[in-house]
């Protein structure tokens, strides 16, 4: 496999009784941006540290650039890491930080200076070489941390939630910058995050991780539109989760009813029979809102609701409804036309969604009781 920069084969890591990484296998193509997305404690940091070489897998093998990394120390791997808190060396200037790895490789001083200066210029910090680390802004430090790694021309760049410490505005900005940097350098990036928006925006491929395993591995579009498991459906993007039992089923679709008697239709995902516990998911932007039935798309089953609260957030504005009879919460994205800008709490409305764009999974063990 000449085009794969990272291959993990049945990698396992246990801490006492707890399995942090459970027989994980995946491949990351050369030059791609691969994200590992999961809640805290899912094992993604352990996986990253195994790739970097700080911890050894109990079994299985990790290969980087076609070579097995078994028994190879972090300082000898063609991998560099951008740490969560960046870990820039405060005792050195920005230029010395970037030149640190080159010095360790025995690159001559003049060449070191030239290459670190060139790298700083590429990340837009050409004049910062002599500055102290604490003189830089959060975003500039971020770029220094990346430059410090990329100057070594690693096969793989690992990033451990590097945007977590930044404020929202800067985070949005750095997302774009990271994507542009990756495109410009062509280095393979492996990025871990618990923020699904970062993973979706940045990545070519995303592995959604839970309890040491990949729930699903695919493109951001796959994860969003075609989730394979209820975990992926609820973790990636906003979703309305409806729990109930199957009341009728055919080869492709299913009708499910909640315990208090609200029935919806959705696509069938996985094997299920009448009476089985299931979880249904409807994206907020899939549902339509109307004051009268004629405002709703024709041919869709409609439901009655009452406005509970308006969640104004510019382009991401939504309305939180209650299904009128069962009082179950349902979130709908507001259209950008301003059609419903005069909506008031307690107002009676109708809503509908295309059953072809809603999904229904067999309920996970232990997850049947509570609503999302």
């Amino acid at each position: 496999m000449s085009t794969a920069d990272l291959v993990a084969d049945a990698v396992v890591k246990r801490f006492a009784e707890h399995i942090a990484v459970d027989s994980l296998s995946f491949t990351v193509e050369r030059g791609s941006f691969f994200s590992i997305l999961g809640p805290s404690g899912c094992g993604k940091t352990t996986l990253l540290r195994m790739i970097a070489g700080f911890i050894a897998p109990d079994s299985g093998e990790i290969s980087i650039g076609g070579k097995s990394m078994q028994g190879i120390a972090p300082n000898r791997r063609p991998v560099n890491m951008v740490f969560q808190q960046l870990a820039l060396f405060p005792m050195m200037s920005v230029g010395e930080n970037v030149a640190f790895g080159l010095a360790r490789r025995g690159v001559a001083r003049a060449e070191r200076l030239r290459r670190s200066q060139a790298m700083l210029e590429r990340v837009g910090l050409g004049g910062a070489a002599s500055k102290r680390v604490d003189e830089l802004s959060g975003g500039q430090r971020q770029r220094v941390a990346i430059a410090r790694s990329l100057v070594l021309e690693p096969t793989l760049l690992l990033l451990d939630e590097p945007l977590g410490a930044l404020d929202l505005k800067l985070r949005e900005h750095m997302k774009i910058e990271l994507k542009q940097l990756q495109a410009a350098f062509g280095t393979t990036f492996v990025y871990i995050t618990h923020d699904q928006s970062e993973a979706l925006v940045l990545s070519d491929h995303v592995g959604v991780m839970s309890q040491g395993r990949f729930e699903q591995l695919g493109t951001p579009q796959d994860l969003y539109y075609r989730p394979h498991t209820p975990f992926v459906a609820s973790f990636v993007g906003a979703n309305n989760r409806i729990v109930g039992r199957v009341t009728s089923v055919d080869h492709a679709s299913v009708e499910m009813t909640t315990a208090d008697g609200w029935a919806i239709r959705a696509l069938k995902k996985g094997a299920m029979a009448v009476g089985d516990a299931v979880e249904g998911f409807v994206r907020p932007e899939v549902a339509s809102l109307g004051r009268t039935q004629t405002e709703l798309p024709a041919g869709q089953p409609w439901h009655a609701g009452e406005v509970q609260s308006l969640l104004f957030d510019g382009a991401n504005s939504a309305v939180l409804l209650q299904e009128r009879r069962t009082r179950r919460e349902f979130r709908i994205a507001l259209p950008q036309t301003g059609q419903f800008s005069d909506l008031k709490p307690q107002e009676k409305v109708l809503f509908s969604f295309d059953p072809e764009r809603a999904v229904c999974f067999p309920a996970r063990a232990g997850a049947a009781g509570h609503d999302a």
Partner: protein
Amino acid sequence: MPSAALQRKWQGRLSLTLLLAPALLWLCALIILPHIDLAILSFRERVGPRHYVASLAQYRTFFAEPLYWHVFVRTAVMSVVATFLTLLLAFPIAWIIAKLAQGRASSLLFILCLIPFWVSETVRTLGWMILLRESGVLPSLLVKLGITAVPVELLYHDATIMVGLIYTSLLFMVIPLISSLESLDNALIEAAYDLGADGFAILRAIVIPHAAPGITAGCIVVFMLTLGNYLTPTLLGGKNSQWFTEQIYTQFITRFNWEQGAALGFLLLALSTVMVMVGLRLTGQRFGDVMRRT
């Protein structure tokens, strides 16, 4: 109301003065006053019974008498060596306590370092004498193991003095080192490792620069303690220990020459001040920064 504000201000001043009073009193009565008196003593000469004149004779004697010079330089050199060896020994200990040991193990190790200090220095030093004297534990063990034919005297060597000085000073080096190593972010070590550094490069480029104020603070404290130590060189080095504090003791107590003793005392003070300043200059640090870390 300006009068109320004024009153509050005075109350604030008064409580600050009262709070500082014990420290100021201690500083004045036990440090400053005796030193002023000693300074006056050192600059006078006895020309007849109860008749003194101002003179530099005491300092002239020091520079004219080779024995004083010899002991002075020897004390300084041995103190520097003892400080350096203490640093070498304390660094791994502090590293283990601050970085490698987890939770309870870390505090247990620290307590192990502390426990010997529950015993007075005299008793500890006498303990060394029991171990090292010719009829003591270690020489007889060496005979039993067949390493030496007859018991050897392990006391009264320079090396013995060195062991005693390091043993006495170790804790004062370990404590500032622990606090400076604990504040070192492990991610920095990992980052350096990840960027290709080996253990030595990490120590030189990351750990030592970070711990430099702690190292300097420990060295200053240990150097001063060693230079001014009287008990350990006297007991472990015996008559030939030739420690400068012994010369001072002799002048004051045996020779009853307080003037000469005071002059030697001031020369020792000058020596430690100069050495500390040189040390700070060489490592490029400031006294205030260093003391804040201890």
